[in-house]
């Protein structure tokens, strides 16, 4: 190989390396680009449109071309928060119902999931089968599962009343209404917990797998009982996972639309009028899209606030614990 040829080869290799480096540097961004565009299209654009709509008087007269709907300033917002009028009053009522519902549902899901996961750490015959069974509600298609519950909760022909009244003889001869009136809250909560706890179980169980066995052995040697082990070892070890788990459960439950919609249809009983279905009804059933958008924006702000406060406190707590 002549020196000239060698020089050309060196130069070419350097160029290839340089462009290679450039390409490598640009690649992650290029790969991210589609996701970014999707994010923009799927989340940001509709969100901005929703915010714009919330300032307009958008009814059936304008849905064909919503940009021609007249501006209404803060009218939609003042309507949504005026608790002396039925619209605001109903929204507030629905908000409180949703808060109580979310609190109970998340607490129960978390408690059931954690308790089961802890007890399932023991090895016993049939554990795998049981684990599989526990995950069924999580794996079933939501609509099919909830509609089955809706049948079971029917007053006259439902399984729930059949068991409670006819077989156990509880609650008197008159069958109970579960999908109407105040009981509808408890029916909804039952379905929500049934659907939600296997997820908590799955996540906590995964977190528990990471706790070294010797910690328990050492604690047992020191004379710590099962409760002390759970309190001192198990719970702190899954703390970080729990934080995410509870946040996710909170957001899912607060925004859950499918469960109440399938159980109750487009107008839920007052006692079970969750905010998602309430907003749906305001927007798409009574055709006040502007008001519905304003309610959605308010809900979004509330959820952002709660998430921010929650993350602030939980991460601060963890940093302090780490320090």
């Amino acid at each position, binding site marked *: 190989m002549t020196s000239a040829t060698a020089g050309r080869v060196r130069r070419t290799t350097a160029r290839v390396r340089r462009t290679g480096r450039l390409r490598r540097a640009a690649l992650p961004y290029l790969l991210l680009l589609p996701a970014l*565009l999707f994010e923009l299209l799927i989340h940001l654009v509709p969100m901005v449109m929703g915010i714009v709509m919330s300032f307009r008087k958008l009814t059936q007269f304008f849905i064909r071309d919503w940009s021609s709907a007249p501006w209404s300033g803060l009218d939609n917002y003042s309507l949504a928060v005026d608790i002396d009028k039925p619209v605001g009053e109903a929204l507030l009522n629905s908000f409180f119902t949703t808060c109580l519902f979310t609190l109970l549902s998340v607490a129960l899901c978390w408690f059931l999931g954690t308790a089961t996961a802890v007890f399932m750490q023991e090895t016993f015959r049939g554990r795998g089968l049981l684990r599989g069974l526990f995950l069924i509600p999580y794996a079933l298609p939501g609509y099919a599962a909830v509609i089955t519950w809706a049948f079971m909760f029917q007053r006259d022909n439902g399984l729930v009343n059949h068991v409670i009244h006819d077989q156990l003889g509880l609650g008197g001869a008159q069958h109970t209404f579960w*999908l109407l009136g105040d009981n509808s809250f408890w029916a909804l909560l039952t379905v929500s917990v049934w659907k939600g706890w296997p997820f908590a179980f799955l996540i906590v169980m995964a977190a528990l797998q990471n706790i070294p066995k010797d910690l328990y052995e050492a604690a047992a040697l020191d004379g710590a009982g099962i409760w002390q082990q759970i309190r001192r070892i198990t719970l702190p070890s899954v703390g970080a996972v729990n934080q995410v788990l509870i946040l996710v459960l909170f957001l899912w439950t607060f925004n859950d639309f499918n469960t109440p919609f399938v159980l109750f249809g487009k107008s839920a009983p007052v006692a079970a009028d969750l905010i998602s279905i309430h907003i749906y009804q305001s927007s798409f059933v009574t055709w006040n899209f502007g008001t519905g958008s304003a309610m959605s924006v308010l809900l979004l702000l509330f959820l952002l606030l709660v998430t921010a406060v929650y993350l602030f406190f939980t991460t601060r707590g963890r940093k302090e614990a780490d320090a």
Partner: protein
Amino acid sequence: MRRTRAAAVTAVTVSMLAAATACGGGSATEGGSNKSPKEITYWASNQGPDIAADQATLGPELKKFEEQTGIKVKLEVVPWSDLLNRILAATASGQGPDVLNIGNTWSSSLQATGALLPWDAKNFDAIGGKDRFVDSAIGSAGAAGKDPAAVPLYSMSYALYYNKKMFQEAGIEKPPATWDEMVTIGQKLSKDGKWALGAEGANLSNNIHQAFVFSQQHGASFFDASGKPTFDTAENVDAVKQYVDLMAKDRIIAPGNAEYDKNQSLQDFANGKTAMVLWQSAASSFKTHGMKEGDWGTAPVPVPAGGTPGTGKNVNSMVAGINMAVFKNTDNIDGSLKFVKFMTGDEEQKLLNKTYGSIPPVKAAQSDPAFANEDLTVLRNTLSTSAAPLPQVPEESQFETAVGTAVKELFADAAAGRAVTTESVKAKLTKAQQQMQK
């Protein structure tokens, strides 16, 4: 390898951008165009016992149309519960079918969106003229004083259906003609786990239809002449209370009916659990639930004491029915008009209405002897003499939800044994009225 990856990324990006710009497109040509003359899309509402039955009924007819005109019709049967939302989505996006069925009570609401082709004299001429249709059916095809937003396709009215065997066993000779008789007879029938009358307490549309008739019988209206809601007038409160009292006070409707919204009351009727139902064109449903012609009798819906079905306070049904509309921005305006002409033609009207147990809104088709049996005679007489259209105001669909929900909640109270009083009815109707935003 790297080059392929870069190419892939570029391809995805470009297609994304293309999709994004496509979303913003969609031209709305006023009055439609004829860009794709060989095909139309048709959304039919679910009329038969299920979607497959509708496809079986309509399929051969659409084939016939294709043979006559060379225009292929792509059919989609949409379940009733989805239909309004689907139409709204299509209206908002501009991407809808060419021709579609709508519930006739929605005519004015959908007319207000401006998405439907107005049926002016020229369009009516294309399908044989407005005079071919029954007046009351045209009256429920859009707001008064405007060109209709749709064309009547199937007409229906409410009737009182009664189980002949249960009546015989209870020694009752003829169905009640007034509400007083309904209560007296009803209390004789409501015993041993059986009930006199069925209701669909959680079905908002059905609640509205019943509330409307009671309101008419009390000489009231849910909207005043200027289109303002008047839900909570004393007469309307009395009207709604009278209906809910059939369960709350008179105890002739089973409390369990408060949660019915999927036509369960028809099943109870067919199973001999309830003796009567107030329903529109129910014959084909009874047959699918296993009843035979002759097992049930048909009578006009009761009216106030001393009256006979007629106009004014003796109105005993809403003008029920299905209309056919054309989306204004259709790509095949001529084909769409031809298709509406075909579906509303004398022969098709006879055939389709026979299958669905409804009445043809086309005068010439009504004379067919098939529409002269007991069931259809009652329905036809009701339609022509004692039925009134629901308020033809743009807010009709909101009204259905707001007042329908109020009645649903009142039934829930009645079922739970809570008192249904004039005050509680008024409170619910006032709330419903305030939910109507202008």
